[in-house]
């Protein structure tokens, strides 16, 4: 199966370590110049997928193709890719310059060109004045930039990044994200990026692949995946969603929290069987609902202050709910832990996922 967009393709990639299956048939197709993110919880098989793409590991079955050519068993050093490792994996016995020069040296690049390319790349990541530093004298962010420079300087056919900002603090992470985006645009290379941080995927990727337990659960442009999660797992993992499980009986949605009228949606959306209502945390409201809006009572358990808004954590009949309010709105309500509040939402803000 070759689609015109298929620059890099994974077809039915499975991986077993002894008895344990870690990847259960991964299909990916990535276009040239695209920036894609693999996103999923820890242990979902993201790193294993990357290792199979780089050639540092082999799939148990399935194929990896580059421009339609089967490279499944081509050794890593012959693929012309580059990888930014989670903990950078810089060469501790080489200085910054020699780390970045390594890939070009292996390619036998002439000295003059090598010096020029390494220097240019170090300038790009603002590390030129550190060229002769040893890597163990660098801060986390600096190491990160050396790792990126080392990967990009060889102009790889594919750039792989395994949680490249995972080891950085929040502020640095945002900086690094914008720099990565910038480099991607300027160099026009194809990036495959792994993260368990959804906001990072949202900020960087042209397309995301949500992975769960060795499978791709959903893929597409980040906005569409975040706004219309296709499975309960995706709804739970991406975005800040409330999940209410129940069953569709007649025209109603019957849950442990109460029974909610579905009005015309049962027929229109084809709802039936056991379903999950997905409601974004900024779509839940407090106070007196207008006529015809679903409502329930929930006990306030905790508050989290996030700058301009406050998250309320509530509990009702064994279901955890979270609700984002603007800070001043929250303040006016004088929230008290342990008190019960009326929670409601507009029917159209609930999105139903049913497993038939």
């Amino acid at each position, binding site marked *: 199966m070759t689609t015109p967009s298929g620059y890099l393709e994974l077809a039915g990639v499975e991986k077993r370590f002894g008895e344990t299956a870690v990847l259960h048939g991964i299909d990916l197709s990535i276009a040239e110049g695209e920036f894609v993110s693999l996103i999923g919880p820890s242990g979902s098989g993201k790193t294993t997928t990357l290792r199979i793409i780089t050639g540092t590991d082999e799939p148990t079955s399935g194929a990896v193709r580059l421009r339609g050519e089967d490279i499944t068993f081509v050794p890593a050093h012959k693929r012309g890719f580059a990888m930014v490792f989670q*903990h950078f994996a810089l060469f501790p016995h080489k200085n910054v310059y020699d780390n970045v020069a390594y890939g070009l040296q292996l390619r036998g690049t002439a000295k003059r060109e090598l010096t020029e390319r390494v220097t240019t790349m170090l300038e790009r990541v*603002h590390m030129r004045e550190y060229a002769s530093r040893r890597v163990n004298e660098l801060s986390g962010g600096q190491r990160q930039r050396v790792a990126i420079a080392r990967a990009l300087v060889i102009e790889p056919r594919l750039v792989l990044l395994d949680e490249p900002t995972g080891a950085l603090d929040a502020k640095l992470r945002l900086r690094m994200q914008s720099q990565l985006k910038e480099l991607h645009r300027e160099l026009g290379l194809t990036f495959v990026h792994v993260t368990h941080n959804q906001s990072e995927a949202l900020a960087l990727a042209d397309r995301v692949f949500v992975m769960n337990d060795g499978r791709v659960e959903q893929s597409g442009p980040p906005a569409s995946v975040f706004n219309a999660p296709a499975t309960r797992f995706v709804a739970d993992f991406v975005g800040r969603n409330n999940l209410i499980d129940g069953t569709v009986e007649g025209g109603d949605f019957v849950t442990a929290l109460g029974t909610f009228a579905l009005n015309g949606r049962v027929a229109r959306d084809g709802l039936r069987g056991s379903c999950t209502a997905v409601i974004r945390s900024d779509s839940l409201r407090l106070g007196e609902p207008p006529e015809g809006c679903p409502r329930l009572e929930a006990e306030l358990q905790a508050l989290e202050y996030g700058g301009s808004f406050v998250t309320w954590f509530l509990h009702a009949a064994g279901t955890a709910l979270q609700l984002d309010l603007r800070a001043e709105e929250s303040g006016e309500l004088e929230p008290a832990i342990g008190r019960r509040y009326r929670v409601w939402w507009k029917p159209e803000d609930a999105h139903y996922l049913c497993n038939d």
Partner: protein
Amino acid sequence: MTLTTGQRAVKGLSGTLFAFVLLVLYAPFAIMLTLSFGERATAVFPPSEFTFVSYEKLLHPSDYSLFTIAGEPLTNYWPPLRLSLILGLLTALLATALALMAALAFRRRFRGRGPLFYLLLLGLLTPGVILGLGMRLFADQVGLGAHWYTTGLLLHVAWTMPFGFIVFLIFLNRYDVSVEEAAAVLGASRWKVFRTVTLPLLAPGVMGSLLFGFTLSLDEVQRSSFVMGRDQTLPMELLAVTGVRITPVVYALGSLIAVVSFALLALYFVGFERERRRTAIAEPDEDDDFTAAAPLAAAA
């Protein structure tokens, strides 16, 4: 910081103990060094005269006029010393190469890994006499003549290899394999990865293993006595001579060897410290100059 009486007592006691250990370790050497400048056959401490005659005897073993002590063995230590040095060097090189290969292999899982591991280390625990005797019997069975370069070398390598193996295991324990993968993805073949990443990073281990191989081989008598045939290493020669009569020449030789060993060790530690500081990945400090850096657009 103030100390309680108990703490002070413990501190004093451990200090004394430490001094005692140092004394036990180094006093014999000091005595030997002093005696090597004495002249008479019987060791009297402290010696009443100071002379270099024992060192001269070492240098000129065929100048019989120097050997004035009654019944003094006229021994030429140079051939056994040369043999010991050559054997030590060869042993160190071979054992280190083997130990490195074995340790690298043990990073992977394979069938029989566990039993093989203990089998490799068994050589450390087997009594030397048994190992030497066994080797000799084995050599006789397969018709291998006992020489330093056959059974001798084989046994020395087998004896020292596990030490090197342990040294490499210790170094590999703190070794991040993803560095090798990074090199491979950047285009390095397996051999290139070994040459440019693995070996440089394990350099202190290589030095340690070489040192172990060399010193253990240089010192080895028990096992050697069965397998060297007519070849005599220095410690074997010394043991033979001292069985007859101990003269200050032996002290002179011992002092020379000890001084050279200390110098080698000092060199190793200086080199090791430099290497360690060079390759250790310290935790990064979190302050970062990134915010101060110009926006990317300006640099591009």
